[in-house]
């Protein structure tokens, strides 16, 4: 089969693959930037290569020490896990409740502008900083222990759910609000009858998801002293108690895994 040609010169038409970044120059430029970046960082970062090399052998020794995991202090570990779970549960319930007013304040189609700016600022501020930073502040105010942890998780959870709530409200068809307003309903009744039914399913789903995320985060706020299994874990590392660390790490993975399964089961039940 002879190839068909469209031009008189007998040349085949050209074709090119469609790439993600179309412009050839841009692609090569980006590639060059990437290579340059890697080289520059490797030189400028303070890297102690000898420590790295020895680190790998140290890792080997650590893992050897981690197995078999230490099962003698299970009670201590169990207390830490229980504390983490309790922190996560309490924080989830309170976070859910608090997120509603803050989310409403963050919806531009429901509240006047100053309130909207206030609500959105709270959400942005609390989401920008990692929960460990928030945890440290609570530790400084309330001292070591699970109180700081619960408060941290409440703050982190509330801002997450509130952001979802605000976005859901803003995405509502405006006609619904118009219709209920036209009957002469006051603002609380508007929320009750028009806003609540629309956001409820997603709100519940996000809150259950947050429960699972809170379990994950509760394991970490303990590192700065805010209670939970993280505190136990940090202590074992500072004591070089690596076999116990391994036990705790396995427990954390199992706990998080369990939390994920339970939360996705509840969410599929709600659907």
């Amino acid at each position: 089969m002879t190839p068909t040609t469209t031009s008189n010169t007998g040349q085949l038409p050209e074709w090119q693959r469609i790439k993600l970044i179309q412009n050839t120059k841009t692609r090569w430029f980006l590639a060059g930037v990437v290579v340059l970046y890697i080289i520059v960082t490797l030189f400028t970062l303070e890297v102690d290569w000898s420590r790295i090399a020895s680190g790998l052998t140290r890792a080997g020794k650590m893992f050897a020490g981690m197995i078999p995991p230490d099962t003698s202090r299970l009670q201590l570990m169990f207390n830490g896990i229980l504390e983490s779970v309790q922190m996560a549960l309490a924080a989830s319930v309170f976070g859910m409740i608090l997120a509603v007013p803050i989310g409403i304040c963050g919806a531009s189609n429901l509240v006047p502008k100053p309130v909207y700016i206030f609500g959105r600022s709270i959400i942005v501020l609390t989401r920008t900083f990692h929960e460990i930073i928030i945890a440290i502040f609570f530790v400084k105010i309330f001292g070591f222990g699970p109180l700081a942890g619960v408060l941290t998780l409440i703050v982190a959870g509330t801002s997450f759910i509130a952001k979802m709530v605000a976005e859901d409200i803003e995405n509502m068809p405006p006609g619904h609000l118009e219709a209920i307003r036209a009957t002469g309903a006051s603002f609380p009744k508007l929320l009750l009858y028009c806003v609540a039914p629309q956001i409820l399913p997603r709100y519940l789903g996000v809150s259950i998801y947050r429960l699972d995320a809170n379990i994950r985060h509760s394991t970490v706020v303990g590192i700065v002293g805010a209670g939970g299994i993280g505190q136990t874990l940090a202590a074992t590392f500072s004591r070089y108690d690596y076999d116990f660390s391994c036990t705790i790490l396995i427990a954390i993975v199992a706990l998080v895994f369990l939390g994920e399964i339970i939360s996705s089961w509840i969410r599929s039940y709600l659907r």
Partner: protein
Amino acid sequence: MLELRNLSKVYPNGTKALDDVCLTVDQPQVVAIIGPSGAGKSTILRCINRLVDSSSGQVLLNGEDICSLSKSGLRKARRRIGMIFQEYNLVERLTVMENVLSGRLGYVGFWTAYRRKFPAEDIRTAFELLERVGLAGTQNARADALSGGQRQRVGIARAVIQAPDLLLVDEPTASLDPKTSRQIMRILVELSHERNTPSLINIHDVRLAQTFADRIIGLCGGKVVFDGLSSQITPEILTRIYGEEDWSTTIKKDTPEDNDGAVQASEELKDQGPEQAQQ
């Protein structure tokens, strides 16, 4: 009953949606508002219950100026105005009964609404209205499980349960097929006459307006260019109202099965056509 005095609305970008509109409805009649798109038909309805605030002028409902009311006064006034929407605007996740009862939200307290324990009188009226609009037995169905025509009927029930002094209807049939449109218009007109309530109906379809309304108001460019009985409408007047736009395109085509008398009337009107009127 309803009086609009020098009502004007100018949007921030300079568009004049309503220009010195004066209108009086002093008897329980069905008033259709027709006109080309952008003429201000939606705006005029929304300025009456202040879903949109007018720039100047007065809206007097039974002698009370709605434009000067406070927030709580406005809420009380809105209780007496029922509104029906083009997109039905039902709360989709709630049942039909809850949607109908939401018309009474202005009259019940917060906890009553939360517990859904509306007064017995309201519930009886709700059942009666559902049967009246042909939706008996659907009270527990979720609103988003209904067809367009059914949803609009729920919307009508919601507006009527307010026992309003005025019905505002914003393009009730724009999203419906011709047969359902006529059913809806029929229900609206019958309810309006039964309960002695004046209705202002925003309509895009000229034929429907002529068939069902007692009185027709033509809006063009925010001004009232015609105000008279529907029997007084002629093709010349329609051309004056619609100007550049061909008003015969607003009439929805029927399927052959429909054999209302209305079809014949509109055929006669269409035969004369806007082109003929210009001769």
